[in-house]
């Protein structure tokens, strides 16, 4: 009897061992697959950072220079930039002496305000030859957030709100601002609510940090490895993207050059340096050169296009001579005049096409290696 019980035990152990081996094989294989797929995740993360950096360069050409009163939350100085390369003739705005020359042309390096004053301080971003870094993470509530509610004034159902008779009363603002929920229901004239909306909640959401960053260097034109055909200095940028936790610091020396910055990586400098170097080595970093252009990319230019009369039967060009109230080369409907629809050709006279008032990119160039001399 004893030997028979032993045989069963051996068999059971063998089967269990086989199952364990099988599970181990699964786990090992899954881990291998996950590791190989991790590179795809890092690639995607880096490419997202490229998108973010491109958006930043576009928006910073004009936006972000207004001054907000920290107490009232109101904009006290609604300045905007005129682009990284100022599209205005330097002499027209009295800034000829500040113009720079490139390829036989002179221009103003921006961004500058309406009167031509630079919106930067010499030696600091966004001056040429300087860089900025943007470690990416999510705020609990970003400044100026809008509640992701597509229908703040949805038509109420008769059952739930019989007193509205199905009428969509516009009792809530649309879009609806997002502010500290403890401040109650939205009141458009509430100063505390506005201030909360302006400030947001800068607390970082755990788990969103350390996934990616970008940094932007504004080229001077004097970089040794920058071809002259790269475009006018001031309009070209080196975008560096990374998928790791180094927060966009170029190297440890740069970290140490900023007082206290090392503490983000460890409890003491030696430990922080070691962690930074390890994290830096494990990161996927890519470098791009891009040229920003003040040229807008939408169909703003067709606003001048022919305004067709609603009775016009001409599809492709105006009906010249049909009368003063008919089509003309020299009249146009305003942008987004979606109400003017030709009864004959089902056409909308003015376009509602994508616009981009913060400039465009003339090219994107992946660099095979980081620019020489740490110019990134």
């Amino acid at each position, binding site marked *: 009897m004893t030997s028979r019980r032993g045989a069963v035990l051996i068999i059971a152990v*063998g089967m269990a061992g086989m199952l364990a081996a099988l599970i181990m094989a699964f786990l090992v294989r899954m881990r291998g697959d996950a590791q190989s797929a991790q590179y795809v995740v890092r690639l995607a993360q880096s490419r997202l950072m490229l998108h973010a950096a491109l958006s930043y360069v576009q928006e910073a050409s004009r936006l972000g220079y207004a001054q907000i009163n920290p107490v009232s939350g109101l904009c006290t100085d609604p300045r905007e930039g005129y682009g990284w390369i100022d599209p205005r003739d330097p002499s027209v705005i009295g800034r000829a002496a500040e113009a720079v020359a490139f390829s036989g042309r002179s221009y103003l390096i921006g961004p500058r305000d309406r009167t031509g004053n630079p919106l930067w301080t010499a030696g600091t971003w966004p001056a040429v030859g300087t860089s900025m870094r943007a470690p990416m993470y999510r705020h609990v509530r970003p400044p100026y957030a809008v509640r992701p509610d597509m229908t703040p004034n949805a038509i109420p159902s008769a059952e739930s709100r019989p007193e509205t008779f199905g009428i969509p009363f516009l009792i809530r603002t649309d879009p609806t601002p997002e502010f500290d929920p403890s401040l109650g229901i939205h009141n458009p004239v509430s100063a505390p609510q506005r201030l909360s909306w302006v400030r947001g909640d800068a607390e970082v959401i755990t788990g969103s940090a350390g996934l990616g960053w970008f940094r932007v260097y504004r080229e001077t034109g004097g970089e040794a490895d920058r071809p002259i055909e790269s475009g006018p200095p001031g309009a070209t940028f080196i975008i560096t993207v990374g998928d790791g936790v180094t927060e966009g610091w170029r190297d440890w020396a740069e970290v140490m050059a900023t007082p206290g910055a090392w503490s983000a990586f460890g409890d003491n400098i030696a430990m922080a340096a070691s962690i930074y170097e390890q994290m830096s080595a494990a990161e996927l970093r890519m470098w791009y050169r891009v040229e920003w252009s003040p040229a807008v990319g939408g169909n703003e230019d067709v606003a001048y296009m022919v305004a067709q009369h609603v009775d016009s039967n001409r599809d492709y060009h105006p009906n010249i001579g049909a009368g003063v109230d008919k089509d003309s080369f020299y009249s146009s409907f305003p942008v987004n005049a979606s109400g003017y629809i030709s009864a004959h050709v089902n056409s909308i006279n003015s376009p509602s096409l994508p616009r981009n008032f913060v400039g465009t990119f003339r090219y994107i160039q992946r660099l095979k290696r980081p620019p020489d001399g740490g110019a990134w």
Partner: protein
Amino acid sequence: MKNAFTLIELMLSLVLAVVIIGTLYAGFRAAVLTVSVTERLALENRLIVAGIIAAVDEVDSWASLDRPNHTPLRTNPVGGFKVLTPSGWKPPYTGERTYEWGGRDWASLPQPFTPLRASWPTSGAAGTIGAGEDASGLALSGVYDPTWLVNDPRTWYRLDGANWSNRLEFHEDQNPFGNDALFSGAQSSVRVESRADAGVQGDTRWPVAHTWSARQTKGLAYGLGFYGLFSYLPANAFLDFYDNDERPLSLGRGLVNREVRFIGKLGINSQIAHLGDTAYAGTMENQFSGSFHIPAGYGGGALFSGAERAGTRSQWLFTNHLGISGYPIGANNETRRRQLVLHRKMSGSYGRESEAGTYALLLTSLSFPTDLIAQRPSHWPQVTAEVRRTMKWQAILNICYVRIIDPINGRMTQIVFPVTGTTLRGARISRGLDAL
């Protein structure tokens, strides 16, 4: 009593043993199969990962179109514009043409990776230049200028873009703003004449005030093809310039708008024609052949950026589409011709659909997948990666296709995703092709 099994015990033991062994065998077999399936899935996963990585890398490297030992888009043009004089054209499509029918001159035309030193026409002009004609616009003076500052008056558009480019309406006597060709054009001078019955003005040449913009546009279009033209021009640059004498026509003005403004509305057949097939195969130059289109919901003349009126680069990319293509190693001349025709093509969809039609055909024609593992075991899946580069909806689109095909069960899995990355100009700068 002897310590032994009874027959029943032995029989039961044997039965149980058979059951256990059978179960064990079945379990072992299932385990082996599971391991095999797991290995197979893992192999497929890793191949898909490799395909995605290869496709994303291709977006930046452009290696499938230009790499060491395979440079299908670098040609050695003879210099100067090719100018052909067609026969049988009816007005308003009369005049010199730049490209041969059917893309037969693909090997002698500049292509998107031809260095600008070789593709920018700075001297000489092939073809027929009549006595007294101005050849200066055919052999462009100056060089490619990468600056294009918007505060530079040379970059400004100086024509009347709202004009419908029916040639007769361009006659100076009917043009409310006069002869635009005097303001801007690719040639140094413009032939000025009046209608035959006017009798007040002779046939003379007048200098053109501004030539920089027209020549830059013309040079880029010729030197790089239309994909290159769109990749290099600023977003709001007007694709419109005067060029080419209309001397044979008594009612013609000195110059006519060229290159990208005249696109014929040919109908459904042109959807095939743009691939270089059928009787329309000759349609290498778009001003005579391409089709265009008005997307549903957008009006006709008021919005349309195509044939009749001038439009900006962005406008063109909203209503039209184009692509860039190469050919694989070992391709025959017919394949090469058909692929490189696409560089001188812009297409739309005729009718009221914006995506069906020629864009689908264009995407198909741009497909040259790379087999990542050419030498693989016969039972391994085949994985391919490719990037199809088009311009459409006002944007540059790099559409990655990763495909895995299992030879055992024939199952095909395809992953399609767009990626933002290096543009043609960026790829050319990296290769030093823009240095002058």
